[in-house]
Structures are given as C-alpha cells and as structure tokens.
C-alpha cells in the first residue's frame, strides 16, 4: 500500500534518489543536497506555521511504499509563487500585421516574457518512480495535494497553476531551448534549469530576451513544441483537465511546456471532496464500495491514501486507520476517484 505524507528530514536520501532519476528536467527538484534539505525545511516550517495570510509557504509530500519504506514519488504545492524570486512565463500573444492596401492580414504569435502568474499558487514537483507509474498512483500522488488544499483553503492563493514539462528528444534536449534559450544563456538546458532550481537570483532577468520573440523566426521544431507537454505527461495533463485546469497560452520559458491554470476554489477535488467522520471496523467489502482518495484533516500529520469504501458510510479497517493516524469518529476528507 502506498501512502502520502509530508516530507521529513529522514527523507533526504530518498528525495535525492528521485532528483537523480528525474534527470534534471524538474526545476523544483534539483539534485543538490542543500536545496533538497531546504525543501524539507520549508515544508516543515510551512506546516508548523499558523497561516492567516498565505505567503511563500511550500508544502511537499512523498509517496511512501509501506511494504519496504521506500520513497517512490514526490509532489508539492507552493502557496503563492513569485514573492521572493520573480516567477517568469512566456505569454503567447498574437500581434496583427495588416496592410489594407496589400489585402494582407497576418496574425503573428510572439512570446512575451511576463510575470503574470506572480501570486498564484502552484502544483509542483510531481515525480513518480517509473516502477510505480500507474494511473491510480498518479491520482493518489497528484490529487492528495488537492485534498490537502481543500482542507486548508486559506493557505493558498485563489489562482492555481501547474506546469507540464515540455517536449524533449531522446537525449533529453528541448528543441525550444536549443533554438531560443541557448542563444541567451550560453549553457545547456539542464544547467539553466538547475540554476533556476537553486534560486540563483536574477539570472533569468539578466540573460533573457526582454523584447518579444516572434514565433515565426524560431525553428520548426521549436514552434511545434510550443505549449506541448512531453508525451509521458499526457496522463498528468488529462488528470488536471478533469480537475478543471485550462491552458491559457502561457508556456515555460525554458522548454515551452504548457502552464495550466484554474481557480483554486473551482477545481473538482475542492468542490466535490467532502468532510465526514470515519468508522473503524472490518472494512469488509460491499457493493457500494468504490475507490476513494481519503485523508485525515491534519497538517503536520497529514496522511492520504486510496482505499475502497462506501462514501455514504465510510468505514475502514484498523490497519488502514493506523496508516492514516485516525481514531474512530475522527474527521476525514474523501473524494471518489
């Protein structure tokens, strides 16, 4: 059985393993021990903090295999981005170039460097070990965060974004980066991503093009990759779209992967999850049982997993209750999958 729980300092090694096998493509998970330590530290501090007005808190969770204690996945939420370090995106705007005399009316897309998502909450750092990459586990990993948000809505900004990794070739090279970023950064994608991850302040502002970049001047491969997620991100994309996320023509400045956005309060897990109390019993099967995401309602001891139960009369076995840190009659939050 797989269990979601907040990061603790004991997870450092497990986290490092994930950072390495994720191959440096995830900005928020650089293979840098200091930074990973900081990630844990921030999570612990954020969880402890009594929040009345959200700020730069960051919550990260791991997916733990209960059979062997191994960390097989990680996911995170930023309460709001761009507070201490600027948060950049490219907005794909269209500029009209028209000449009435020539009867020409062209709509030319151009990339505008912007910080429009400053202040938004962000789902981030989603990574699941290859051996456990099933749809159910992905649901658990990604939606558990939303259940946490549903329980603690005051801790998160009203707008919520999620960035999907962009297209890369077999050698992990992004055609978008090769065509654009490389000219301005003089370094390879992985290094640039890494530097962003460890919050090297201001280097993007120093090096990025300030003027809009006209899309037709990019290579065909780079143009084709605009707003396209990496193929293995499709499941994640579908999951987010089911939650109510939309692509609004904002893309990642490094690999042009799409940023999806939603109103935090409108996502499905927020609107459809419900709070109720749990009954600890045999958890024996009945016809009314369905797969649900279930969590306790705590912060520092937040736990979440997938179990079969009857949403109308939730009952779980003692073993599962123990994993969830639940006693009979405790509050839970559930949502059907």
């Amino acid at each position, binding site marked *: 059985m797989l269990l979601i729980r907040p990061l603790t300092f004991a997870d450092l090694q497990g986290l490092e393993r994930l950072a390495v096998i994720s191959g440096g493509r995830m900005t928020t998970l650089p293979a840098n021990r200091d930074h990973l330590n900081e990630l844990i530290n921030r999570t612990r501090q954020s969880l402890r903090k009594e929040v009345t007005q959200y700020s730069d808190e960051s919550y990260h969770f791991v997916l733990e295999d209960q059979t062997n204690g191994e960390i097989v996945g990680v996911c995170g939420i930023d309460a709001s981005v761009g507070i201490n370090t600027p948060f950049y995106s490219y907005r794909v705007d269209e*500029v009209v*170039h*028209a*000449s009435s*005399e*020539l009867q*020409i009316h*062209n709509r*030319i897309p*151009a990339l505008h460097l912007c910080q429009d998502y400053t202040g938004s909450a962000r789902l981030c750092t989603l990574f699941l070990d290859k051996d456990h990459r099933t749809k159910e586990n992905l649901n658990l990993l990604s939606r558990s965060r939303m259940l946490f948000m549903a329980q603690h809505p005051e801790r998160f900004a009203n707008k919520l974004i999620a960035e999907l990794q962009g297209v890369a070739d077999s050698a992990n090279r992004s055609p978008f980066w090769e*065509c*654009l970023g490389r*000219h*301005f*950064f*003089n*370094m390879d994608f992985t290094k640039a991503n890494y*530097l962003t991850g460890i919050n*090297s*302040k*201001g*280097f993007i502002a*120093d*090096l*990025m*093009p*300030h*003027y*809009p*970049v*006209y899309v*037709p*001047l*990019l290579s065909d491969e780079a143009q084709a990759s605009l707003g396209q997620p990496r193929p293995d991100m499709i499941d994640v994309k579908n999951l987010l779209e089911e939650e109510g996320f939309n692509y609004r023509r904002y893309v990642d400045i490094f690999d042009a992967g799409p940023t999806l956005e939603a109103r935090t309060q409108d996502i499905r897990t927020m609107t459809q999850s419900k709070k109720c109390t749990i009954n600890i019993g045999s958890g024996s099967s009945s016809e009314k049982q369905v797969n649900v995401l279930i969590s306790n309602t705590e912060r520092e001891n937040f736990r979440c997993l997938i179990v079969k139960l009857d949403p109308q009369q939730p009952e779980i076995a003692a073993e599962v209750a123990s994993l969830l840190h639940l006693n009979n009659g405790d509050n839970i939050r559930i949502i059907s999958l």
Partner: protein
Amino acid sequence: MMVVRPIQANDHEALRELGRKTGPGFTSLQDNDEQVATKLEAGLAAFTAGSVPVEALYLFVMEDTETQEVVGICGIESAVGLSDPWYNYRVGTLVHASRELDVYNQISTLTITNDHTGYSELCTLFLTPEARHSKQGSLLSKSRFMFLAEFPQRFNEHLIAEMRGYSDESGVSPFWEGLGRHFFSLDFAEADKISSMDKVFIAELMPKNTIYTNLLSKGAQDSIGKTHEATTPARRLLENEGLRYTGYIDIFDGGPTLEARVNDIRAIQESQYVKVHIADIPPDGETYLISTTEFSQFRCCMSPISRAGKNVITITPDVASALNVIESSTVRIVPLSSGRRF
C-alpha cells in the same frame, strides 16, 4: 566634354531612354512611361518653385557637349519621410550578462526606426554602360556635392545614401528570406516589386518590436549591412568622401545606408571659390570638379586646371563653354578625388 546640369522639360525622351537601360535592380527609374513622367515633373518643379520647397527632388543629367546626348542621371531628395514615413532597421547592441554566473553575451538587434526623417538623400544615380570610363561616374555622383555646397539652405544638414543590399547568384536576398518573408505571404520577387513602389507597405507588415539577430538564419545575419556586389564601387566612392555606414539598413534587403553631415563631406568641406582665366593652353594640374554658382543654370564638369595665381585658375575655352562662364566668372572647385582612403 561631359557636363552635369539640371534636368529640363526637353529631356523627356532622353530620360525615357535611360529608363529602358537601367534594368530591374534600379527601382527608381524603370522602363515605365508613368514613372518617367512623374520623375521629370518632380525634377522640373524643384528648379522652378518660387520659394525654397521643403520637399524637392533635384534631378540632374550628364550631357555630352559634343553630341548633346544625355548619358546619365543623378538626384538629391531635399528631405525624406515627410509625406510617407521613411523606414530603416537600426542595428543595435544589447549585452546580456550575469556577473554571478560569469556569462556575458553581446547580442545584435534590429529595431525599426524613422530616424532619418527629414534628412537629404542622394538618389537615382545611373550612367549608361558606354559612358562608364574616364572617371565620368565620379563626376556624375560628386557633382551633387558641388550643388549641395552651393545651396546648403535647400538641404538638411544630414545626408544619406542607400546602398542596394546583398543578394545571391539567383537574385534572392538572404535577409528577406530570413526575416521579412516570415511576416508576408509573398515571395522575394513580388515583395521586391512592391518595395520598389512604396516601402511603407513593407514597413506596415514588418515586426514592430526589436528583433534579436541571433534568432535569424546565418545567411540573413551575414547580409546585415552588406552591399550588393554591383554597388560596391559606388559605396567606396561615397566612403572616400566621408559618408559612413552608421548601423542603419534597409528593412527589405538589409543593404546599408551611408550617412554624413553635409559639412563633413570632403568635396564640400574642401571646395573653394576661385575666378577663372580662360586660355587655350593645355592645363597640366590635378583634375578638379568645377561648378558654377547659378541655381537653375547650375553646371558642373571636371578638368585638370592650372593655377594662375592665388584664387585664379586657368581653364580652356572648351570648359568655359561647357560651364557657360566667361573670363573672371566665379566658380567652385575641389579636387575630384581625395588623397585619403578609408
């Protein structure tokens, strides 16, 4: 003897004939009745306007005094961009650097501007192939400087000249292919045709924001400020007079614009007034441009001269007749070529 003089109404047939000879690259004078008529009209108007016009096209022809044949044409626009905007790309530099990361990038940019608005422009220079010898091209081109020196109040203090941009063996401009083409639905030939008629059309469709040249094709980058082979001698001639490429290029083909302050141009700066003494002795001195001080009767030719005293030169009766000057007339002279090379 070749003499340069203002265009006249009865030059129509000669002008029409020149238009037949220019070829497709020479967009300002083509084998086109209407264009020739418009041109002639503008040229005549410039020399007959009552007061000093703000916008005028001063057109001159080069005539062989022996045969009365017109073998070349040249012009000066008094001010560009005052009716339709005058567009250029300006080549700029941006440095993107991060001390922290020890990264330093110097990036070349193109920005659309109308910076040359109001400047005077050297234009419409054409000499028939048969007449391209004996420095007659220099006479034709530089005679304009003598006119500028004589009538500075009719011109802006800044002078520009556009050089045709580079194109490859098949006549295609890599600059266009790498930049403009992406914003048009037109191929080079069609765009070229439109461009020759009216560059405003092109400018309307070109990107308004600064372009990073490192995103352009290698061919386009290399064509920035590069002169067409056929135009290279003309560029050298103007550079020897002090005109300079200052980072402005044609938005269409990337060809350079040369620029100078009128007063900094060698032929203008070093020209001086002298009186003429007419004598039938073959002069043995350096070759000079000699021009008259009249406006509508302006004349310019070139000849070796002898100094007949301080501020007096000796010229032959031939030259005097070509210039329509008499003994003791005042003329402006300057050595045809500069000693300096750039």
